[in-house]
């Protein structure tokens, strides 16, 4: 198939909309739970401020009260994004605010990468027609369903961005240390290093990771497993079936990281990060959800058949 045809192959509007709901719900819950943490960065300590990304536009920290207000606004916008309310105007603002707030929390000396994929996914969903159905806008006739070609490429882009994140991680490993990770010793040392660091910084560590340090050969297999997943990520975008297998395998990788290092990549562990690799609109057929959907939104057997054949 020609690349542009593959790229423009359509998808049901419901798939993109369900992705907006899944990512939107995750974003709202995540921000709500993290509100105390986010608000802890309402600081005016200029010496500690080390801006990165878009936060470098300002040379000094934002006034603490202004920052607090912006965090609250981001929370409200997260709700609007989830509901698909005034999506064309408010969703891009939410994406921008989310980027700014999360970048601001990374502007105090330590850059964490755990939120990058969430921000990228929200950006794609905010700038595309993810609220044409299953939204407030659709209910109030501010948005309407268009050709399937409008809904396919944003989903492919979300999957491609997800795969790219892992591919870049794999390339960075090869560039910095060749295949050292696959030799096992590096991974074993990392697991020991992370657990010592957690203990010595007064945090919870992984007793399982510590117990497994006694089996050095195990880490060779785990090292190869992670390198293959990272460097093979592009294949997951090209094949739907492979994409599903890859997603569950990467989920397994993150579950392993949680077990061995007590580091939780929540966006990945909840599978939300990998939702673009699945026909998520099928969730609408699930009994408890299907019973609550208005008649005009329920999928007919014909619609379901069409989706299946893609």
């Amino acid at each position, binding site marked *: 198939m020609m690349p542009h045809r593959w790229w423009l192959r359509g998808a049901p509007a419901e798939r993109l909309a369900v992705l907006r709901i899944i990512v939107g719900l995750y974003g709202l819950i995540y921000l709500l739970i993290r509100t105390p943490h986010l608000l802890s960065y309402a600081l005016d300590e200029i010496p500690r401020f080390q801006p990165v990304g878009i936060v470098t536009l300002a040379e000094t920290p934002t006034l603490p009260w202004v920052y607090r207000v912006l965090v609250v606004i981001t929370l409200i916008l997260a709700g609007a994004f989830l509901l698909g309310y005034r999506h064309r105007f408010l969703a891009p603002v939410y994406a921008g605010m989310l980027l700014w707030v999360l970048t601001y929390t990374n502007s105090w000396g330590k850059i964490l990468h755990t939120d990058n994929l969430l921000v990228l996914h929200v950006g794609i969903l905010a700038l595309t027609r993810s609220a044409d159905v299953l939204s407030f806008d659709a209910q109030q006739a501010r948005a309407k369903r268009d050709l399937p070609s409008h809904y396919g490429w944003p989903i492919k882009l979300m999957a491609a961005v997800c795969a790219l994140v892992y591919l870049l991680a794999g390339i960075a490993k090869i560039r910095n240390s060749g295949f050292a990770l696959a030799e096992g010793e590096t991974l074993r*040392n990392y697991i020991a290093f992370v657990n010592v660091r957690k203990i010595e910084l007064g945090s919870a560590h992984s007793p399982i990771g510590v117990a497994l340090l006694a089996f050095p050969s195990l880490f060779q297999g785990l090292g190869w497993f992670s390198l293959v997943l990272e460097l093979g990520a592009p294949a997951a975008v090209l094949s739907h079936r492979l994409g599903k297998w890859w997603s569950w395998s990467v989920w397994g990788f993150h579950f392993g990281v949680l077990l061995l290092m007590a580091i939780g990549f929540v966006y990945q562990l909840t599978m939300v990060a990998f939702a673009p690799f699945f026909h998520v609109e099928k969730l609408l057929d699930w009994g408890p959800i299907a019973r609550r959907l208005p008649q005009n939104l329920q999928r007919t057997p014909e619609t379901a058949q069409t989706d299946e054949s893609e």
Partner: protein
Amino acid sequence: MFSHGRPDPGMVLAQALGVRSNGEKVPLAPMISSGNREVLQSMMTIHRELHSPRASAFCAEIAERVAGEEDLRDVEQVELSMSTFDAVAYFEDAEAATERDIRVSCEVRR
């Protein structure tokens, strides 16, 4: 994550320790050591402050937070240390695998 090779289990860490009345040293949790929930953010804060001219003032701030914490009522002193570990050997004999270079210390006033 972890893109650099790590052939050596050695590591150096800036950390904040509480010294109990019996001399035992306990690592202080991120909220106490830096007023932040994030472990890695806390680590960076301790490292930066320890190498800044205001290291003593930073130690006093930690001591103030310790004084307000019921679970740490027997902690009498705060120490800021650059500690060296053998990360693998640590889990066999933590004391032998640890070397602490105490750079700043301060009293906990209640």
